[in-house]
């Protein structure tokens, strides 16, 4: 079973605020899912290569030059900022 501290540590890494009752619930739920996942230990994997994609993936390159975009698409993105100042994204200060 995962400890309360472990769950709180993962929640912090994941940047998720959880209530105390939720920490307890997730402790139980994650533990039972991890118990189920434990059966992977029985699979014979020595010498087996890992698969990240089912098909062969190649990097796609393009020339390193500026591509002109429409002002309209820029406006659409800026409109979605929760906070903006003079067309720039605004966040809380960190210092």
């Amino acid at each position, binding site marked *: 079973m995962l400890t309360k501290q472990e769950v709180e540590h*993962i929640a912090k890494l994941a940047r998720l605020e959880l209530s105390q009752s939720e920490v307890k619930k997730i402790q139980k739920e994650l533990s039972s899912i991890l118990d189920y996942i434990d059966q992977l230990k029985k699979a014979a994997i020595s010498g087996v290569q890992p698969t990240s994609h089912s098909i062969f993936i190649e990097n796609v390159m393009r020339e390193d030059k500026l591509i002109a975009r429409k002002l309209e698409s820029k406006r659409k993105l800026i409109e979605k900022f929760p906070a903006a100042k003079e067309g720039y994204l605004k966040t809380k200060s960190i210092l």
Partner: protein
Amino acid sequence: MKLYELTIAKAHRGLKKKEFSCLELTKSFLDRISNLDKKIFSFLTITPDIALSQAKKIDDWILQKREIPLLAGIPLAIKDNILVEGVRCTAASKILENYIAPYDATVVKRLKKLGVVILGKTNLDEFAMGSSTENSAYKVTHNPHDLNYIPGGSSGGSAAALTSNFCIFSLGSDTGGSIRQPASFCGVVGLKPTYGAVSRYGLISMASSLDQIGLITKTVEDTKIVFGAIKGKDSLDSTSVESKIRNQPYGESRATAKFEIRNCKVGVPKEYFIEGMDPAVEKIIKNSIKKFEDLGIKIKEISLPHTKYALAAYYIIMPSEVSANLARYDGIKYGFSKKKAQSLLNVYLESRGEGFGEEVRRRIMLGTYALSAGYYEAYYLRAQKVRTLIQEDFKKAFQKIDLILTPVSPTPAFKIGEKITDPLKMYLSDVFTIAVNLAGLPALSLPVGKVSNLPVGLQIIARPFEEDKIFEIGQMFEQI
């Protein structure tokens, strides 16, 4: 036959022969949605203005005697995790409640070019995470065959909307069974194409190595038409590929096809008939396989020995990718933001803590744990190796056979509320669909029977990029 009951091919003929206008066709669906969706809850957003103005445009094309593509004027519904420019796209999450899509997904762009009529956006489990559509932050979709039951998920809105004749076809996405399982539970045809066959650009990412856009239709013929329209390489999705195998274009005589379905060998894996499976479902699946045998198709029992590990490997790989993909929802760039938070860290914590629903938080936690220091090898790397074993099982099997038949799900649809409190139990309802995503194969759910009033689907799996074989055998079954 009512206008809203037509298939794509039939609606196209009717439009061309001017038996009805596109406006009449579109209105028949919009009326049905406004009268009946209050019982089904399949739509999150309805777009009548877009639909009606597009319908008028198609009527003009027809009036001008322009040659119209097969999909011109065909009304469809789109899962609300696929972007349509200018239309709200929520992924059924509170974190994207007011998000207006700034561009079209590639599939939407391709379909728009052919003149389709977009009716609206359909409900799903939040960020496509779930098997019942109960994880939507907005509403629970009901199964049109019995309103006390779930429609399946996560593309439950798309499957229920099609089954209710709210559209002629619908788009969905499938990461672990999210098109095939709801298609099976609703008794319609659902295709998950080969990984890479259809561009994912403009699909809200969940687990990028598994996600695939696909479709839900009334017939296999319709599936063939829509798949032909959306497949192909896209420079905006580096994982999309142009198939080296030429899928037969719609309309080409089947007699000219190289592949002769009667000579095809079909495998039935013994690992897909497990203890705990609903005996009535097993009987329907076995009867449908028998029907293929009666048509002269050779059926052979095969073994996919690593099947038992698929679900466990999936529940490491998928949440790991989820935890990385969903890091972008930070309350800073777009979407829900807790502006009153004290500090930057609290903006992250509170926006995500409040904006994401329970299942999404659970999967982010699981994925973060699996990828965290000290656990990577024990979980993620091990799961990726097991993924190789699962893929090799299929490769070996496909050396001797052309297609694989299995059930889509061990049970028919379950009751609303039945599994929602037990995440592991919910995950197990995808036990037969997940291996296909891990191996990147194409698979289709074909309705083959009912247990009382609840439909049951047969899963047809093919080699990568051999969707055509699935269509051939599927159409053959429909013609029995």
